[in-house]
């Protein structure tokens, strides 16, 4: 298959470009926070990375709860004024979010890219892959991202601002976010991969963060997008997904009930893409708009990625055939198979 016509290859190239820009982009003159591209990016680009060109929206939200809204409520001030910075951040977030919708997860997020690269590594090492996570587990996992968004991004920082929790819980999500450790390590800075004994809270937070980082890497070797499933950014995207211009659209055909290839292709194991027969907008809360379901849909025009009213990528039987073949070839090429081929050659050659 011509790689330029392969959506997954195009997406990988975009992801790598975004990774380089977001993790090493300060070379473009964006060292200071005031120079960052958005200051409220809808993807996990970390503020702790001194060489990053942007920072995700979750860090200003936490700071505003802790340093602005909490103290304003405590002093009996004007709550609207206390909320104003949060509304400005949300507005900035939305301006960018409208453009790409949840594709910020599937195409831009450095942590998402890293997990996909680790998964490719696992596949090439010949590790046994878990193609689909058990539907029961998927269902039970879904609320976790909402809980993290509600508690770690808004709840605990607000409680800290109100004085009920200690200051070390002012930005608890950042303290456990694997993107913080990943992006700083990617810049040769190991200062975030530590156990911090400053207080009981920092000990707990750093233990969780380090453990989660190791766990994420191990899981990503065989399971698709393990951290994305509990990421609060995915939850925040889900709240506003109706306003995004890019969408996943389905025109269900009678064959949809039997096929299910789209759900198997989905890295987030959203089986509703396959079972939904009524709704046209199938940009579900866990969807990252990666487009794999469209690639692996064998029926013409059943699944589409649409930008506003315009289809940008449609399911096509011809594309499906070639793409499926290319996928099989790609999956067969592992280090184990390469090693056994070399060994065989060694045996047959005199």
């Amino acid at each position, binding site marked *: 298959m011509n790689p330029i016509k392969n959506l997954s290859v195009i997406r990988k190239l975009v992801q790598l470009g975004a990774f380089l820009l977001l993790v090493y982009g300060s070379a473009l003159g964006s060292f200071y926070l*005031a120079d960052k591209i958005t200051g409220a990016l809808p993807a996990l680009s970390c503020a702790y990375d001194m060489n990053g060109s942007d920072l995700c929206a979750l860090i200003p939200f936490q700071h505003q709860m802790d340093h602005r809204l909490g103290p304003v409520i405590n002093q009996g001030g004007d709550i609207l004024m206390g909320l104003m910075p949060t509304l400005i951040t949300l507005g900035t977030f939305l301006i960018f979010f409208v453009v790409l919708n949840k594709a910020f997860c599937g195409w831009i997020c450095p942590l998402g890219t890293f997990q996909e690269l680790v998964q490719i590594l696992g596949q090439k090492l010949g590790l046994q892959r878990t193609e689909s996570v058990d539907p029961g587990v998927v269902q039970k996992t879904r609320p976790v991202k909402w809980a993290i968004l509600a508690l770690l991004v808004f709840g605990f920082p607000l409680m800290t601002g109100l004085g009920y929790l200690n200051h070390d819980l002012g930005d608890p999500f950042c303290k456990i976010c694997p993107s913080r450790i990943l992006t700083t390590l990617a810049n040769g800075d190991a200062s975030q991969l*530590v156990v911090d004994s400053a207080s009981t809270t920092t000990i707990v937070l750093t233990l969780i963060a380090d453990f989660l980082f190791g766990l994420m890497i*191990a899981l990503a070797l065989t399971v698709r997008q393990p951290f994305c499933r*509990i990421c609060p950014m995915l939850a925040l995207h889900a709240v506003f997904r109706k306003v995004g211009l890019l969408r996943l659209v389905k025109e269900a055909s009678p064959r949809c009930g039997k096929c299910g290839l789209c759900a198997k292709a989905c890295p987030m194991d959203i089986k509703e893409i396959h079972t939904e027969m009524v709704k046209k907008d199938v940009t579900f809360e866990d969807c990252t708009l990666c487009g794999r379901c469209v690639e692996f849909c064998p029926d013409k025009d059943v699944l589409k990625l649409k930008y506003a009213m315009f289809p940008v990528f449609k399911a096509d039987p011809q594309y499906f055939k070639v793409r499926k073949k290319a996928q099989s070839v790609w999956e067969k090429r592992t280090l184990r198979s390469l090693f056994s081929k070399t060994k065989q050659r060694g045996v047959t050659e005199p």
Partner: protein
Amino acid sequence: MIWLNYRPALVMFTALVVSGWSSGMASAQTQGAAGGAEKKPPAQAMQHNRGPKRLALSNADGAVVTLWKPDLGKRELEPKMGMITLPPTGVDNYHAIVVERDWGDSVDAIVRYEYMRGKPSGESPRKLTSAVKTPVEVVPDPLPREHHRYYSRAEAAFILRYRDQVLANHPVVLQTSNGSSVNGVSDSEGRVVFQIPDDFSDVVPGERDQRGAELSVSTEYQAEGVQYNSVLTAEYRVSPEHWQSKPWGVAVAGIGFVFGGFLTRRIARHKKGGAK
């Protein structure tokens, strides 16, 4: 299957609340006991010093003190009783305080950058550092990023500048209020990198230490018959490396990795069992 489930998240939230609540309430109780009947716990943000910043200045007779805003707007300040009070400017980000005293055949200058709070200024600190504020300057390259600071053990870089030209191969000295002194020479681009001395006394390993001290980076230069003595001053703090352990961090990440491996094996076995 215990992974990717809500139970670990529940354990995590509980651990955080317990660890955060206990010390939060302890501080609330302490304040309550000291200050009488306080109904509301004190807001953490109140612990930040948000009043006007004050800087001590000695032997300042005849000196001109100028406050530079992020947009390069200037305002003259009047030292009182050896103190400079920085008035709120309404905007956030770094401001520069420039103290100059002209002796005729020599000019002494002190430059200090202070982060001030307010509405977003929309200006990059780069604008402020690039501006020529006094003929000879020691310019941070870069300034510690917003919400960050200088720490002992960390490297800090500076550029030596005479008006709009860099001073290459020029001597410069870093001194701290803890008594350390480090000599350096700028490179061909006028840049010098120092490792800030780890010179705080009685640091207890493993315990957070929020003490601060002063550092000054000074240089001298003669041009057109005038001797320029220029100093950059800044605060630096105890390195967090004293209470942060990297080996333990790597070990915990390793445990997470091993645990993840164990889980994936379990899933694989579970799937195989299901397939049979």
